[in-house]
């Protein structure tokens, strides 16, 4: 207080006889001191508090008694932080040496909120130049600090997005000068930011390998400055020396009035995609080549197969014809010189050659059923069944078999192959009813779950369901040849034909109770709505 008093004394002594004016002025100063928005105080050079203004008291809501006469750093503004207390003590020490001190600190308000405060401590000297008083001032800079923090944070977020982005990115002024380039772009080509900042974009290392690209980029900048978006595929040299494929774009950023203020170049590294595309292209080519090769091999195999079956068809029959023909010649021309055994043996020769001939025909049918194109057309199965039955009746006209053929049954299928199917299934029914006195054969259709199922049913010898898996295997028979002749290749052929039509075939039966063969023909158009 003494210092303040001495200051006042000095002040007053300069204006002797004007005590009233002095008092007025003193009151005015007090008002200014207290009404100031800033926190203010007066300290002795050693830091003892002489006076604190009202704003400062309001700030932390404390009493004069807790403050006056104490060391400033031990007052409630500072006690929340020993670090800041220490900082203040140092500052006061410096100010007492005559320095103007300024620093930022925090105060804790009564509500526990921290505020940022910009503190200055000014030394006041007497005529002799000694520091006699310190004037601390504190301004609440929390709002500014918060704005700064928010800005720093948004800058940080921008930086993170910008730098962490997988895309190459940059910021250019509308004339193409580089303001900023992100880390991804710098890393790709091993460029330092300082090397490219402030340079025209097209003169940077990313384009250095191609004059054409440089021109293209220069042109793009001009277009961008006019507000156009430009994009094209480009390449960038990378640190490892390879060229990376880039999907490049340049977009203008406009202000509210529509002026272009920034250009944003972006580059997406599509090298991986390009490589994958190239790989796929190569794989496709290889695949195609392989398909062509396989097809050729298959065609070759098919041709060989055809030649083989042709030879079988032609050459294997000739010796049989000779065996049978000359047996007949013997029987006819030399009958008088052959006894009964001799004639029987000749008959066996003829039987053998006939069986062989049937076998050849069966094999040829089997092989034909799996090769060649299907000639799909509408086929009248009812009349086909009729024809087959008529041929069977003609061959064995003494057989009494009742045949029921459902009228108007059609299929969309290969006529020639379906004929083989019908001949085999009806032929089998015919054969296996040969021991019945009341043989009965039926050809009709059923519709099961929207699918047309064709069926050939007989009441003949039937078969044991336990062996049904063997029915369709070539050369597998469920009956002895002496019971029912056959070579066991018909149903195998039928199954192959049905499968080639995307259909299914199965059978039901019981020994002595007949058999039913069901088949479908898969493809569209084989349905009968009635």
């Amino acid at each position: 207080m003494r210092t303040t008093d001495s200051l006042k004394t000095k002040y007053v002594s300069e204006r002797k006889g004007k005590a009233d004016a002095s008092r007025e002025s003193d009151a005015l100063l007090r008002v200014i001191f207290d009404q100031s928005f800033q926190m203010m105080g007066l300290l002795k050079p050693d830091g003892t508090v002489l006076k604190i203004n009202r704003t400062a008291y309001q700030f932390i809501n404390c009493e004069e008694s807790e403050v006056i006469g104490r060391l400033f750093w031990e007052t409630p503004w500072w006690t929340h932080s020993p670090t800041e207390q220490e900082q203040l003590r140092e500052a006061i020490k410096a100010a007492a040496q005559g320095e103007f001190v300024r620093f930022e600190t925090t105060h804790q308000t009564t509500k526990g909120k921290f505020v940022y405060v910009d503190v200055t401590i000014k030394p006041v000297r007497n005529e002799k130049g000694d520091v006699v008083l310190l004037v601390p001032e504190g301004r609440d800079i929390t709002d500014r600090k918060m704005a700064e923090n928010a800005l720093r944070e948004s800058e940080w977020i921008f930086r993170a997005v910008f730098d962490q982005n997988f895309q190459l990115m940059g910021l250019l002024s509308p004339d193409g000068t580089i303001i900023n380039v992100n880390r991804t772009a710098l890393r790709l080509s091993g460029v330092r930011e300082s090397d490219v900042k402030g340079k025209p974009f097209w003169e940077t290392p990313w384009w250095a390998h191609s004059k054409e690209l440089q021109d293209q980029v220069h042109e793009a900048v001009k277009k961008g400055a006019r507000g156009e978006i430009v994009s094209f595929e480009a390449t960038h040299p990378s640190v490892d020396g390879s060229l990376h494929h880039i999907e490049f774009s340049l977009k203008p950023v406009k202000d509210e009035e529509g002026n272009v203020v920034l250009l944003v170049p972006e580059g997406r590294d599509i090298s991986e995609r390009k490589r994958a595309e190239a790989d796929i292209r190569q794989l496709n080519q290889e695949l195609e080549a392989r398909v062509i090769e396989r097809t050729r091999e298959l065609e070759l195999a098919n041709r060989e197969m055809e030649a083989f079956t042709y030879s079988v068809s032609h050459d294997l029959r000739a010796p049989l014809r000779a065996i049978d023909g000359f047996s007949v010649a013997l029987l006819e021309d030399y009958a008088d010189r052959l006894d009964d055994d001799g004639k029987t043996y000749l008959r066996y020769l003829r039987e053998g050659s006939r069986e062989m001939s049937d076998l050849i025909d069966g094999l040829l049918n089997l092989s034909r059923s799996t090769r060649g194109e299907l000639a799909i057309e509408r086929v009248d199965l009812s009349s086909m069944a009729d024809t087959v039955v008529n041929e069977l009746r003609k061959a064995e006209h003494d057989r009494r078999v009742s045949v029921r053929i459902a009228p108007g049954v059609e299929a969309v299928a290969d006529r020639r192959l379906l004929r083989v199917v019908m001949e085999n299934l009806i032929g089998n029914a015919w054969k296996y009813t040969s021991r019945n006195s009341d043989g009965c054969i039926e050809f009709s259709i059923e519709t099961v779950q929207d699918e047309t199922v064709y069926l050939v049913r007989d009441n003949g010898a039937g078969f044991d369901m336990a062996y049904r898996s063997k029915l369709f295997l070539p050369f597998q028979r469920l009956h002895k040849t002496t019971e029912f002749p056959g070579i066991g290749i018909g149903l195998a052929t039928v199954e192959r034909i049905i499968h080639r039509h995307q259909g299914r075939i199965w059978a039901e039966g019981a020994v002595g109770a007949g058999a039913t063969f069901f088949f479908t023909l898969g493809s569209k158009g084989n349905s009968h709505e009635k």
Partner: protein
Amino acid sequence: MKNSTILLVEDNPKDELLTLRALNKCHVANEIVVVRDGAEALDYLFSEGDHADREVSDLPTLVLLDLKLPKVDGLEVLRRIRADVRTKLLPVVILTSSDEEKDIIAGYELGANSYVRKPVEFSDFGVAVADLGRYWLITNEPPPVKKGRTP
């Protein structure tokens, strides 16, 4: 009928014998000329090679043609017969073991008058040959004999 020769083109001697026997059995009395490969068949028909002294216009009434033949195959013989103005109307019956669809189609496409498969069983074979003989030698009215010019 000025000439009633049958030309049998057959490389298999047993088939030849059986065919001749069958024709004989059904009393076909025509002269039967047998050639054993396609080349000889063409030589005969066009009076070349061993048959150079034959009159070309003296055509057979009927050709029985096997398909699988040495040197020149049956289909080629047929093609040449149809391609030549002197022989293009000649009745040709394919008599073969093959019942391959493509052979039958090719045979008809090249202008065969008939396609007969040789059955394995002799009785059937005999019937087939006899039918052929009857139809082509008796029932069928052959094309008028044209005097061809020897080239």
